[in-house]
């Protein structure tokens, strides 16, 4: 959905009401933007209260709908009769008005899904890691901690994967661990890997990275690829040799499975050290909680603590464990309380 139409000027039939509506939506949007900025600032200040459930764009839509309803008096009856579901869409799909485009207000705008908002937010809040070239990624369990409906989250994630916005990677750290990374970031990682290999190998070998990026990544949205399929996709670009595929494996873009030698997993290069701190951090946090008397702690107190064994910050792990169900949140008068789940 595009928001251009929102800015339709007075030339439109219900122009006045629409512009009023558009103004309110923009106001909402700015508010959101400010909120997000505040969030980032909070993060910088070390005030970590970002683990709560994101209000989400759905509630955002609901708010906007309310705004529409509020302006209802001015909107013509015909529009009011339109069902709730496509009301917004109709507002959003109105033709362009060049006059307002020039005025400099934001013109291109897509309504992102809850999942995408959550992923982007968490990518921004990804802990600063020294001596690691890994671009920010999100664990799938972390998404569940902030999107309230898991089925919706799964389906939106799948759609985003199909649209090449995100990529998912199977991680070795647990049976149900997946990392999610923005496709742009992953392409940058491939570029990094290529630069690293280029210093050692001749030019004709490194061409395989470009082929991989253009042909394989765009064609295959899943987490694994079969050998025959990989060869087929790469050979569309040029003559591929075994050596070049092993180059991809050496650089960490592909991982071979022990159980099935004809299948590869896609992987994020040089993520290995992070996986170790992921599993150890999880273990440290759960054992810390289980050693407390009632197996619970106030979230704000917990977030001030530092983990010895993990490179990630506390918030990263809390989100991960919340999503995987090892811990759960209980609201108390003194703020959210984190309790170890007993099952």
């Amino acid at each position, binding site marked *: 959905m595009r928001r251009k139409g929102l800015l339709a000027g007075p030339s439109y039939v219900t122009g006045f009401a629409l512009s009023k509506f558009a103004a309110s939506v923009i106001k909402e949007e700015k508010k959101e933007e400010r909120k997000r900025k505040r969030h980032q600032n909070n993060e910088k200040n070390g005030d970590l209260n970002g683990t709560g459930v994101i209000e989400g764009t759905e509630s955002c839509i609901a708010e906007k709908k309310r705004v529409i309803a509020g302006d209802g008096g001015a909107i013509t009856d015909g529009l009011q009769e339109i069902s709730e579901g496509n009301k917004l869409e109709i507002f959003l799909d109105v033709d362009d008005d060049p006059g307002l485009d020039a005025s400099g207000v934001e013109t291109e705008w897509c309504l992102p899904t809850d999942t995408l908002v959550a992923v982007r937010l968490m990518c921004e809040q990804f802990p600063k890691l020294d001596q690691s070239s890994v671009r920010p990624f999100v664990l799938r369990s972390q998404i569940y901690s902030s999107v309230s409906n898991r089925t919706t989250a799964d389906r939106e994630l799948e759609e985003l994967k199909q649209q090449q916005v995100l990529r998912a990677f199977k991680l070795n750290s647990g049976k149900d661990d997946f990392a999610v990374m923005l496709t742009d970031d992953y392409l940058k990682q491939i570029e990094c890997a290529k630069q690293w290999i280029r210093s050692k190998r001749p030019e004709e070998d490194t061409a395989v990275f470009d082929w991989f990026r253009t042909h394989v990544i765009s064609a295959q949205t899943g987490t694994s690829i079969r050998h025959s399929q990989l060869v087929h996709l790469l050979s*569309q670009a040029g003559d*591929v040799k075994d050596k070049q595929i092993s180059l991809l494996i050496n650089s960490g873009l592909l991982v071979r499975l022990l159980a099935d030698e004809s299948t590869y997993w896609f992987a994020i290069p040089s993520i290995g050290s992070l996986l170790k701190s992921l599993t150890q951090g999880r273990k440290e946090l759960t054992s810390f909680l289980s050693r407390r008397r009632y197996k619970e702690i106030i979230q704000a107190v917990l977030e001030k603590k530092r983990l010895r064994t993990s490179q990630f910050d506390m918030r990263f792990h809390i989100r991960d464990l919340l999503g995987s169900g090892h811990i759960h949140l209980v609201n108390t008068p003194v703020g959210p309380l984190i309790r170890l789940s007993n099952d």
Partner: protein
Amino acid sequence: MWFDLKARELGAIRPERISRKVASDRLHNLELSSSKDILSVHDSGINSLQVDKTEGRYLLSGASDGSVACYDTLHASTFDPTARSYQHKHVFKVDKRVRKGHKYAVSSVQWYPVDTGLFVTGSFDTHVNVWDTNNLQVELQYDMPGRVYSVSLSQIATSHLLIAVGSADSMVRLCDIATGACTHTLVGHRDAVLAVQWSVSSEWTLYTGSCDGAIRFWDIRRAGSYKVLDQDSSQMGRRPPVPKYSPESEWPVTSRTSKKLLKKAFGDKKSGMSTPPKRVHPGMASAQNYATAHNGAVKALLPTNDGHFLVSAGADSRVKLWDVESGCDTLVNYERMRLSGNRATQLGLSPDSSLLFIPTSTAIKVYNLWTGLLLKTLGGHYDDVNCCELHPYEQEMYSGSSDRKILVWSPPPPPQIDEDREEVCPVPRRLIVNFWSHMICQTKAKGASAGAGEFSARLDVDSWSDED
């Protein structure tokens, strides 16, 4: 409830709808039964439970000490006045003292689908036994190469009588009761098979789930599995989109080098580039398809009652809902549970396929099957729950656990109304009064017409004396 009855009276809703609504309300309110106890005779944990589908009366249980017992769920044997509950004792029990009885844990029990004259048990002592219920003897015994994890008999089969057996061996075996021999071995899995289920819509279709994480669909009339479920192929919601890519289809080969690589990948030792690649038998091709449905062992499979969907539980703590027709994951996420260890479990599904019961550690979690929302957690066992079984016709659930107990879960009893006197009346007094006055009017009218006033007067007296 009363609104619905009124609407039914007016003809606003259909009769089956009200019965469905009452049944689903009762299922949503399942709790630990206060008036019904099943006295378990087992000395160790219960691994498997099944209520017979013919009468819906006899509950069969298999335990870790190798014993199998049967309980009558309809008629109580005694009433315990202190606990105010009806106690159901076992009808029979067989254990290792019976000739050819199971020595080790019974992992799976199943009634013969036609009547309760036979039942089938599979055990860790590598045997599958077919028992005669009337004389409690082993009629047939099949020897398997490894521990037996799961046995299954088709509920709808009319032309075959095959027990599908999943064991520690990677091959699934089909044993024919009619001949007493093993007729098929299904090759394709690469690890022990924990879950075996016949389809409820086609008598030839078998679903199997294995420790290597694969779920395979078999048509037993053909060689090889015809479908291997892949966790990467998914669909939104209940209707499948047009399938874009099926894992079976091989990729066309264009360049020469890739052909060479392809051969290398499949281990083809034949030389000579000009010969076209040998066409692989579809059954063999699927044997080389290593797609996985779960990242871990598949612990349980359960088809929905209409046969369109299949629920699978994996050791990766995930439960997935698969569309049987397209073989795609419907991406329903059943939140937060612990399912670990390579042990078979038994899931429960309500008769209208709306509620899913999943045993997780010491509790049973109740989910909405279509949305994946957690509705309720039923806690009552003191140890790991291994199995749960829904009554096929009534709104009742039985669960077996490692704490040696079989618990009964039933809807709460109807509220009892105490009026001024101490006596407890199950039906509201006003209804009775209405009923009697209605009867009296009728008989009076009849009496007036027939001239038999004595009878109506006596009834009148009777009913009102009862009221006082």
